[in-house]
């Protein structure tokens, strides 16, 4: 390795940090999923959609004194086990705006070399729940559209993951549209909203108040 020309990867661009994510979520019943697939096939880029199966673990870190806790998700693909684990920090949804067309939250996604659960637990994060998402992935330009079914581990122990013993949590699929962009750059929000309008009335994608969901926990 030439020391004089050592260029580490993180040298130039700091573009991976401080991204904000525009997203909208919705759901569709299992019976109408084919219609949704057909519509997505027509709207999105002219590529065959790809199946994916991801394990997602959500960790929360609650500091005394703060009301909201820090949420970190650790994701791993089951289909391609060689792909690295990803840790995704998700900030709280910016609650202020009714003017903005889509929901906004800050998002930092980083790849890690091994299973980060021990690392996170040592930091103080507590595993809240683990879920498996299995579905199809569509793309349109910068937008990512995922249509996935939530599957739960029917066994109790979280450490033993058996890919065959998964059962569905409910009878519907979760649809999510997301686009990443730099901070304070709002052009992607309109795209997300426009795309969501194309999916109505099969899947109604609206801004959901996550605080109400979190209060139930």
């Amino acid at each position, binding site marked *: *390795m030439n020391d004089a*020309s*050592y*260029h*580490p*990867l993180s*040298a*130039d661009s700091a573009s*991976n940090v401080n991204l904000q994510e525009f997203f909208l979520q919705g759901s569709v019943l299992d019976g109408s999923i084919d219609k949704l697939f057909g519509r997505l096939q027509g709207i999105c*880029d*002219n*590529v065959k959609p*790809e199946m*994916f199966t*991801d*394990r*997602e673990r959500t960790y929360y870190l609650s500091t005394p004194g703060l009301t909201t806790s820090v949420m970190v*998700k650790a*994701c*791993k*693909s089951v*289909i*391609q086990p060689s*792909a*690295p684990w*990803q840790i*995704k920090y998700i900030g709280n949804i910016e609650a202020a705006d009714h003017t903005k067309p889509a929901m906004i939250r800050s998002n930092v*996604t*980083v*790849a*890690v*070399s091994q299973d980060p659960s021990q690392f996170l637990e040592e930091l103080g994060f507590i595993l809240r729940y683990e879920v498996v*998402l299995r579905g199809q*992935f569509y*793309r349109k330009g*910068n937008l*990512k559209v*995922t249509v996935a079914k939530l599957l739960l581990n029917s066994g109790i122990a979280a450490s033993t993951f058996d890919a065959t013993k998964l059962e569905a949590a409910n009878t519907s699929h979760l649809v999510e549209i997301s686009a*990443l962009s730099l901070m304070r750059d709002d052009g992607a929000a309109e795209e997300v909203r426009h795309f969501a309008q194309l999916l109505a009335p099969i899947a109604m994608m609206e801004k959901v108040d996550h605080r109400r969901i979190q209060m139930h926990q």
Partner: protein
Amino acid sequence: MYAKLTFSMLVAGMHPGSGMTEQNDKISIASLSENKIQEISYDGQETYFKPFTLSESLTDLANRINFLNEDDNDCEDGEEEDPKGFHQAKQWPWRDIHSHLQRALIEMNVLVDVISITQNKPTTLKDSAAESSDANRYLMYDLAQKDSEPTKPMLQLITKKKCLAGAAKILLNGYERLNKAWTETSGQISFHSALLKLRKCWRVRRVGDKIMGDLSYRTAGSNFWHSGAFEVIKRSGDDTDEESSYGSALPSRLKSPISVEVSSDLLGYAEIFVSVINLDVHRDSLPDDVSECFSLNFHDLMQSSVLRVNQPPWHQKLVNAQNVLFCKEFFTRLTKEAIQLRCRSLYSPFVIVGDTISALVFPHTQLSVHLRYKQKPLLDEKTGNSNIKSLFSFKHTLLQLLQKDHSKQLNIPTPHPTSAVLGLTPEMRHASIQPWSSMQLDTTLKRDDDSLAEAMVKMAKHYEVRRRLAKVIKMILNEYSDPDIQAHWLTLSNQYESCVRMTMASFGYEACHRTVFQATAMADKVKFLHREGKIVFVEVDESCIYKYLVTLISGHQTLTLDKLARNMGWNVLQVTPRSGIDFNSSVINRGSLVASSPSFDSYVGIVCSTTYQGTVEYDVKVKYTKSPENKSTKTSKDPELLAMQFDKYMSIGGIWQKVNWQKIYGRNFINKVETLLTCLVNYD
């Protein structure tokens, strides 16, 4: 009767004020009538029942006797008879109904009994134990036979005929309707069916009240600025046919009710013309132009006139327009890359003038790309130029590269898991968790990266190098017949490299020694790979290649001689295929061999040298040792020398004498040497 009597007495009693003093009052007493009133008519007239005649009264009495009750009346009390008889009198008017009902009840009971017996169901009788279990004991079912009606064939035939006629009428109706519909639609193509046909090949969409289509390559991943939109217009039947570009009026059945409007800059015909031109003015021979003229589907249009008839005119128009768009995109892309490219492999940089991009790839070789755009089809121009040799690989590679680029835009590998960043290659994903530096990452990214301009330059250079190599090989083959040289061009080649495998062997001595090597023509050099594993890179210049091949020839000769001498039993004292030393400076290489006969009688020295002019020269010398003249000269000088005493010293000495090469019998050099060696051995 009763009532009247009462009324009369009431009348008598109700007479007030009389006090029984007057006895003049008349009291009328009438007995009530014996007969009942049958009917009172509206005018008050009463109709009485006729009294019974004697016979009638007798019948009436007889009817009152209840024969059925007689048995019961025997068992039961006699006192009950009277109330029964009384009841019977009361039931009199209902007697008929009663008897009817009784009869019905009897019949029903009988039926139930019969059924239960045939089914062998246990009855309510107390002596059920005496019943047999055999169901068929008392009563059993049997088929009822209907009397067959006498057959009436005529009637059956008539009915069948009628039914068939009805069915046939329905079918005929349906057929007529379908026939009418078919003749209507096939006669002239309706707007909707033509639109359907259009939609099968092209993307169309309804926008408002217009029908717009898209003929660009956007959905395949292209990022070109042109939208490629066209509009579909419904055409009325009165419009004159303007599609006479092929000179022949289309038959009326192909006059389509739809016509298509493309944007004006896509009209016309376009074509990309790539040529590699040899600018060498010294060569007066026919210019070795290689030209490849290609466009996307130009040839499909032009070549098949049969297909042309069946295609509707809008299809040809759209295909043309798409072709123009493609050529435009391709040329724009190439221009952009040509400007940005800092290609060190070009002899002179790209020069872009109007619609031609040209560059010198070698000092006398020019690569030019020309976008031809005409209003008329370019058919006639192509056939005029007979020097054009078509290179399939150019067209194919460039199209493939463009398509690969498009698909790379579109087919971004999906991130697994989906929350990862979009658009990274697998190496990039792993690079972030492994200790890679950005230089390593760059090399992996650049591996598949081949821009159009670079590819084209490389292909042009390769073509030129290959042409030169082929030319040199041909020259050598023409000039040197001595060792037989064979060249086989391998099919294992791609657009940037091709190989030729060459074998040198002297005729008749192929088993003796064979020189085999493989020459690869690459973009900027020629690589020679020898059998012993040696690799030599030679410059692209023709004379360099020529000289190298000539050195290989002389080397081959020397090595063959070596093998030959050993085969014949001669002792090879020294063999040097390559030595850079020679006494006159006109020689590049000098290969030499010195061999002695098996009995050490004679020595042979052979030199094969390559001159700077590119020729091979042979020099063969022979030295005799035990020749009589030799002996005599020696002994004449020193008679008492050791030579007289020891024979072994006889082998020293001798003069090298040049051989008269023309007079030796032999087909080629090696053959002559073999003759020489054979002769020398036979000496003595």
